[in-house]
Every structure is written in structure tokens, then in C-alpha cells.
């Protein structure tokens, strides 16, 4: 691997993905790509060096090497980014997408059974699981055509995580989207109903006051606390499920959750008192009608958009 000193003249600013390309094709990047090429055994999978350089460069640029879009990646940051990629999985996925038979044999031997097990675990049903896995398999194999071209989902894999994790997440996305579509046809929808305008409802003054106090309290919680509260109280996830997502111990989740709940409650009481209620009245209001409060919480937390993804989703 080339040292950072050898690329002292590397660009410091990368304003956009396309503008970064010329700079990335400098000496440092070439050396890095050479090393990655040798390390990945991409030639063994039938990949051309030019194709390898292309999708590796795209992988780095598309994610700005894991940095903020406005931050220019230094050569060292680029190097760290590429070293953090699951290079073997990425090359295998690309080789499969390119239709390499030997790569597919390898993919099947490595991922077929785990894929079926994951699908069964996600759906909770052997039949549904195998059906889901087969459907994804067909997609991966490029049976789906879009605009006259074979579209292989493996092309969207960029090696940030393991290929198996990506497959599991893709399966989960397929399953959730399918269920959401089917639920939308049902009369009672709780989770994905668009957030209604609170002002259109006619809550009592106390409930309105309480709702505002809760909204402000939740706004003051950080993203992790909001995620914990939502996952636990709204989604009904278990501590183990949340712990798996956050890669922490269940006890840690429990402790954080308890602290978030207590802090939220205190903040709500403070907000109510700030609005003119006495502490006793605030406590009475807080415990007035939990069912209504629950509904308000769901509505408050069902704001499905965050600024970061809104910005990135913009064309």
C-alpha cells in the first residue's frame, strides 16, 4: 500500500461524485487499485481490470468514501474506505452480476442455504420463506427485465457490509414491502397511516397541552433515544431485537431505554409546568389517558422523513 506521503498532492476537496473522479484517478488511486486488484483475485472471477477499476471507483465516489458529501476525502481516507470494504464479496457479487458461472457456483455454495434460512426466519414460515428466497434468487439471477435490460440487484451491492448481511436486509425489505402493500388493502392500518394533522382533531385542552409537551420532549431526545422509544413502545420490539440492531447487549438497551423514558417523562412534566400547570396538575395530565397519549405518540413518531435522506433523495 502506498503511503500517504506519496500522495501529498492529492485533492483535498471533493464537492461531488463526478467532480472527484479525475482526482481519484491519480497516482495514489492507481496504486490502491493495483493493490485491491491483486488482493481481490478479481481476475480469477473473470473480471477485467478496467471493469474492476470502474466499479471500485464508483463505489467510493457514490458514498464519498464514507464521508459527508461536502468533505473531500484525503488519500488516506480513501485508502481506509477501500480497506473497509468487503472486497471479496464485492468482487463475487460483480462477477455474478456479470454472469460468471463459476462465481454463481461459489455464490450458491456459500449463500443459498443461509439465504433460505434467513428468509424462513424473516417470514416465520417455511413456505413463505422459501417463496421469498426463490423470488430474490430470481431477481439476483437477473430474470427481471427493466427497460430491456437485465437488472441484477447485486449491482447495487457496494461492499460496505457483508454480502450475506446485504442479502438478509434485502430479503427483509422485500418482505416488509410486500406486507405493507398487503396491509394497505386492509381497513385497519396502524403503522403506516400518513401522519394526520393534529390540529384537525379535537382533543381536549389538556390532551392538546400534553401532546405538545410530549412532542417537544421527544424533539429533545437524540436519535438513538427516539429509536429506542419507537422500537420498543411503538413497534413492540424486544430488547434482544433492538440489541441486535444496535450491536449492544440487551442490558445496555434496557438501561438506555429506562433512562430515555425517565428523561422524557421529566421533560414532559417540565414542559407542562412551563405551560402554566402545577406539578400536581401536570402529573394528573400526564396520567390522564394513556391510550390517547399512545395514539399521539405514534402519530408524532411516524414522521417518516429525515432531513438527511430527504436531501440525498433529491435528484
Amino acid at each position, binding site marked *: 500500500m502506498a503511503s500517504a506521503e506519496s500522495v501529498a498532492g492529492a485533492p483535498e476537496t471533493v464537492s461531488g461524485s463526478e467532480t472527484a473522479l479525475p482526482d481519484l484517478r491519480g497516482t495514489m488511486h492507481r496504486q490502491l487499485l493495483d493493490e485491491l486488484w491483486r488482493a481481490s483475485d478479481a481476475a480469477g472471477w473473470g473480471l477485467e481490470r478496467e471493469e474492476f477499476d470502474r466499479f471500485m471507483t464508483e463505489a467510493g465516489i457514490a458514498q464519498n468514501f464514507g464521508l459527508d458529501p461536502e468533505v473531500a476525502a484525503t488519500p488516506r481516507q480513501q485508502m481506509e474506505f477501500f480497506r473497509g470494504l468487503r472486497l471479496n464479496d464485492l468482487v463475487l457479487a460483480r462477477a455474478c452480476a456479470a454472469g460468471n458461472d463459476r462465481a454463481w457456483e461459489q455464490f450458491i455454495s456459500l449463500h443459498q442455504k*443461509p439465504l433460505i434460512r434467513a428468509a424462513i*426466519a424473516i417470514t416465520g414460515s417455511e413456505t413463505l420463506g422459501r417463496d421469498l428466497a426463490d423470488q430474490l434468487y430470481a431477481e439476483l439471477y437477473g430474470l427481471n427485465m427493466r427497460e430491456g435490460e437485465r437488472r441484477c440487484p447485486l449491482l447495487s451491492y457496494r461492499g460496505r457490509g457483508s454480502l450475506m*448481511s*446485504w442479502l438478509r436486509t434485502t430479503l*427483509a425489505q422485500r418482505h416488509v414491502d410486500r406486507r405493507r402493500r398487503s396491509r394497505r388493502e386492509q381497513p385497519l392500518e396502524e403503522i403506516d397511516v400518513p401522519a394526520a394533522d393534529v390540529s384537525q382533531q379535537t382533543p381536549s385542552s389538556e390532551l392538546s397541552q400534553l401532546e405538545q409537551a410530549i412532542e417537544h420532549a421527544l424533539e429533545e431526545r437524540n436519535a438513538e433515544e427516539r*429509536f429506542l422509544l419507537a422500537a420498543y413502545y411503538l413497534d413492540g420490539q424486544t430488547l434482544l431485537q433492538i440489541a441486535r*440492531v444496535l450491536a449492544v447487549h440487551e442490558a445496555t438497551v434496557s438501561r438506555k431505554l429506562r433512562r430515555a423514558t425517565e428523561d422524557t417523562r421529566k421533560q414532559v412534566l417540565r414542559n407542562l409546568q412551563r405551560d402554566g400547570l402545577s406539578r400536581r396538575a401536570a402529573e394528573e395530565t400526564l396520567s390522564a389517558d394513556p391510550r390517547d397519549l399512545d395514539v399521539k405518540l405514534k402519530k408524532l413518531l*411516524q*414522521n417518516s422523513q429525515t432531513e438527511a435522506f430527504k436531501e440525498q433523495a433529491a435528484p
Partner: protein
Amino acid sequence: MTATTHHEIHPDAEMLSAFVEQTLSAKERGDVLKHLAVCARCRNVVALAGEAAGAEVDASRHKIVQPRTWWRSWGLALAPAVAATAVIAIYVRERGVERTAEVAKLEQMRAGERPATPSQAAPQVPEQAGPTPASPAEKPTPTERPGEPARRATPKKQTQVVFFDPGGGKGGPILTTKEERELERALKEPASPTAESHGSMGAAHAPSGAPPDEKTEPEVALYDEERIKHAEEAAEDRRQFAAKAPMSSSDHGSGSDKAAGGAPGNNEPVDVSALQLEIQPASTAGHLQLHGMRSMVDIATGPSSFLLPSGRPAVSIASADHRTLAVDEKGTLFLREDSSGTWEKVKQQWTGRATVVRRRAPESGATGAMPAPETGESPAASGALSQPGTVFELVNDQGQVWISADGRIWTSQ
């Protein structure tokens, strides 16, 4: 990011899987977490993906640890039980083997005592021939082979084994069935055709009838020297023992005479079954030869090696009906049952010091001689060693006799 609908923008599978695997940068992770805080769909996706990953981990664990069937689940409980059973079985078996070897040695040594004292080997049958006195100083000839009489005993004939019996030759079978077999096997060693003499120990001990010895000349010479030495020691012991334990009855008197004489010639030849031997006081045993193994066996490994719970060696042992009685040097009687395998002290119900314990001879048996099996059938088959109502006899230092059917309760005779 992937825009699934016009209003819903979600992180793609790449970001979510990288989030779960903790491979995102802090900024990216924060963005995904913010989205997850407000997006039920993505929370659901990552939760399901995490659940699938957990299931995969469980599956990989189950590959290593196979599901246990119902009977395997008892393995933990059965394993110690099986191990304990195996240990007990091995212990019982080893103990049986040791005991068999022990008794076989004793009997072989008793059988070999005759040649150790050549004058003792004089062929004498109580009914057929009287005691043949012999000088204790008489030396055995080098050509004599101790133990050969036993080897020459034919199973179909009454085996005559001469041994010194201070108790008057009423010794009964002292061996268990297993021990009897061992002894019988030892006694059935290949006999010379010339050893077909019956009732005549002299013939049995005739050097001419002895099979070729496998020992080399130096070994024979060494052996003879040792044998002579131990024979002298044994004779001395017999004299001392006879002086201490004179027999009162006529039968015992003869034994006493034998004992008092201490000389091999005073040992009255007693016809006993080869399977109905009685262990003699350790002090009377000499350096004997183990017939079956044709090797020298020191008496130290014989009766005197029977250390009783009192810490003293056994001087007299009798066995019948799976019971073994033993008297130590101090006259304490111990009983061991085959089922328990442990010695227990028998409360003294006699006067004086017990010197001999033996199995009482059958009523129909001749005095001083036990009926020998007619054929070589096993003792177990003949039932000779497990007769119901077996009576033990205990003789004190004054020659008085006590009898007991079970070895525990003794009554004066």
C-alpha cells in the same frame, strides 16, 4: 438512498446492512439512526434482518451441538451410574481374581509342603498305612520335586494330599467355587503316567515318576538349598506349635503327635480331597512351590500375607458356603462373607485362645480324612463346597472345640 415512493425515502439495503454490521462511519450511522427513529418500515427491516442473523447464528451453533434425543438427555445421569457400575464390577472382578490367586497359592504351597519335607512325603494313608516317622533332620534329595504329588493327582481318583494338620486332619473345604476351580486346575497339571498311584504318596512323590523338570541345574540346586532351609524352619515351627496346641481327642492326638514331632515323619498322611484343603498356620508352611506355575512361592506371599483387620496374619483359615473364617495369631476370629468382601470380627464365645478354625468333616467321613471326589467333576457341580448346614469348628489352645453353622454363633461341642 432509495426512493421507494414519492414521499418515502429510505436507506438502501447496503446502508442498513452496514448499519447493523457497524461498518458505517459516525456520520452515516447517525443519519441512519435518525431515520430509524422515525421510520417504522426501516426499523422493521433492520429488526427482521437482525433476527435472521440471529437465527443463522443459532443454526451454526446447532450444527455443532446436535439436537439431543430423549435418551441422550439421560446421558448425564447415566454416565456416572455406568461409570460407577463399571468401577464396582472391575473392583469385584479384581478382588475375585486376587482372592483366587491367593487361595491357589496357599493350596499350592500346602501341596508343595510335602516335598519340602521329604519325610512328610512318605506315602501314608490313614486306613492303609500308619504314620511313618521321619527325622526332621532328614534332608530332601535333590531329585525330589516339591509339588509333584499334586500334579500327579488324577482327577478320577482320590487325591491324597499330605499336609500337617494340627487340628487333627478334619480340615474341610475352605475354598469358594472359583477358588476350587483354580486349585483343581492346578492339581490337574499334566501328570506322569507313572503317577497313577493312588493312596500312596510315596509313589506320587517318587522321583522316578516325576516329569522332567524344566529348571536348569543351578536353579535346582538353588531351589533345593532354599527348600532344605525352609523345611528345617518349618519343622521347628511345627514343634513349637504342637507344644502350644496339644490335641485332646484321639484324632487330635494323632495330630498333636504329628505336631509334637514336628518331623515330617510324624505328619500323618491324610486323605483329603484336593478340593477340600485347609490352610495351615502360616508358621507351619515352608517354602513351597507353586505347582501350576512351577515357580517358587515364598510363604510370605501365602497365608502369612493374609493380614486381618487386627493387623496380624491369619494362622488358620476355613471357608465354606461363601464364608471364610480366619484366626489370627492372637486368637481373634474374623469372618468374611463373599457378598460383603470385608472382614468382621466375631465376638469371642469360647474360652482360651482360638488356634484353628476349620470346616467340620461330614459325619460319614473318616476321621482325619475328607472324602475326595470320585471324579474330576467340578466342586460346584458336586456341591462339595456348598453343602447346606455346613459347620465350622474352632479349636482353642486347650484343644476344646466349638462349632458354628454360620461362623458367628459358636457353641461348645
